[in-house]
């Protein structure tokens, strides 16, 4: 039985490190858990469950304290994004009609709507990649953009992406990689060197996408349903991260089709599929 306990402990240690926990902390947690099980006279697997799942639970418990979701005590900061009467047409087809939205620092805005309702287009307009057909778009500060998919080089590794995005903001390679790894750990991901993006799972690619969007510490974050392919734990981590950004004073705009998180958002913009005019 001693062997099984040690093996379980080793699995727990590895799983925790994979989720971005510091190796020293992971080792301590594994040792303590095994000791607790031994003193209770129960096998670790029976007391805590499979090591990999237990690691996930511990990782979630070790995240910085969750924000209460109540409005920030201080007044929201400067206006980062202002949309007034924004419309977008492609020929005769009207994709967006009269969208209004104001996002200030320390606020989260959710853009909801069914498929084809122009959510991604709206986000692209906020990012400056597409020009609105009419209406007013104003924006301040550094912006980070996380598209729904794509925007990655398939044959580069995650670390190389950190270096690339970092260097184009003036970060040194070392700092970019360090920042990237730190941001990844908040999404329970430890990027492995030498693994190409094309070999990453969908959920992990999306985590990379999110990290690349925030690596330069933007004031405004624009995210287009970035949690596709996330397991439940990662989905929770992601929203935890969204409110983390908010509490740190950034503005966040998230396109989502899931209603669950809306009660904590400061603004909700609902887009409907318009019949073309």
């Amino acid at each position, binding site marked *: 039985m001693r062997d099984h306990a040690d093996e379980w402990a080793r699995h727990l240690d590895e799983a925790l490190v994979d989720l971005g926990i510091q190796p020293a902390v992971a080792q301590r*947690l594994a040792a303590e858990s095994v*000791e607790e099980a031994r003193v209770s006279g129960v096998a670790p697997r029976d007391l805590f*469950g499979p090591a990999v799942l237990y690691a996930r*639970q*511990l990782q979630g*418990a*070790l995240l910085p304290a969750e924000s209460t979701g109540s409005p920030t005590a201080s007044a929201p900061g400067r206006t980062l994004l202002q949309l007034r009467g924004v419309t977008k047409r492609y020929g005769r087809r009207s994709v967006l009609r009269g969208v209004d939205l104001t996002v200030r620092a320390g606020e989260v805005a959710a853009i909801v709507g069914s498929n084809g309702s122009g959510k991604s287009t709206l986000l692209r307009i906020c990012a400056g990649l597409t020009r609105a057909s009419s209406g007013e778009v104003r924006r301040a500060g550094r912006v980070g953009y996380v598209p729904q998919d794509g925007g990655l080089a398939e044959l580069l590794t995650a670390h190389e992406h950190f270096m690339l995005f970092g260097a184009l903001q003036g970060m040194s390679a070392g700092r970019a990689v360090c920042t990237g790894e730190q941001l990844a750990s908040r999404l329970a991901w430890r990027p492995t060197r030498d693994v190409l993006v094309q070999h990453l799972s969908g959920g992990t690619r999306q985590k990379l996408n999110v990290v690349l969007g925030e690596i330069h510490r933007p004031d405004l974050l624009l995210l287009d349903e970035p949690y596709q392919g996330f397991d439940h734990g990662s989905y929770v981590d992601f929203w935890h991260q969204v409110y983390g950004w908010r509490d740190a004073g950034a503005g966040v705009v998230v396109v989502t089709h899931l209603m669950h998180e809306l009660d904590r958002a400061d603004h909700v913009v609902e887009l409907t599929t318009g019949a073309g005019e």
Partner: protein
Amino acid sequence: MERQVPQQWLHGFLDLCLLSLLEERRDYGLGLIQRLEEAGLGSVPGGTLYPALVRLESQGYVSASWETSVSGPRRKYFSLSATGRATVADQQRRWHDFRDGIEAVVSGQVTGVGGIGAGHGRGAK
């Protein structure tokens, strides 16, 4: 009779339960599991309970210490910190409000505009 408590119901209140148990007296992991079971809340798995304790510890509400148990090996004991004491009172108050609200709805004592409650009351408690 063993009541079947859906795990999800307990999930939101596990922290409150643990803090309350620790307010009563300090304890170790298995001891807390035992006491929850005795209270009729079913058998909480270690995989759920221990991370909750880790969370409470990282939030500063609970402090842990190692003690050599009677049989020899060390055992991790948890006790409420000063911050923990302050927060448990607050959380208990909020629980009471919540409980009263649910009870009122469940026993049909809410009188809305349409007088829903009055007509469908299931009798006084």
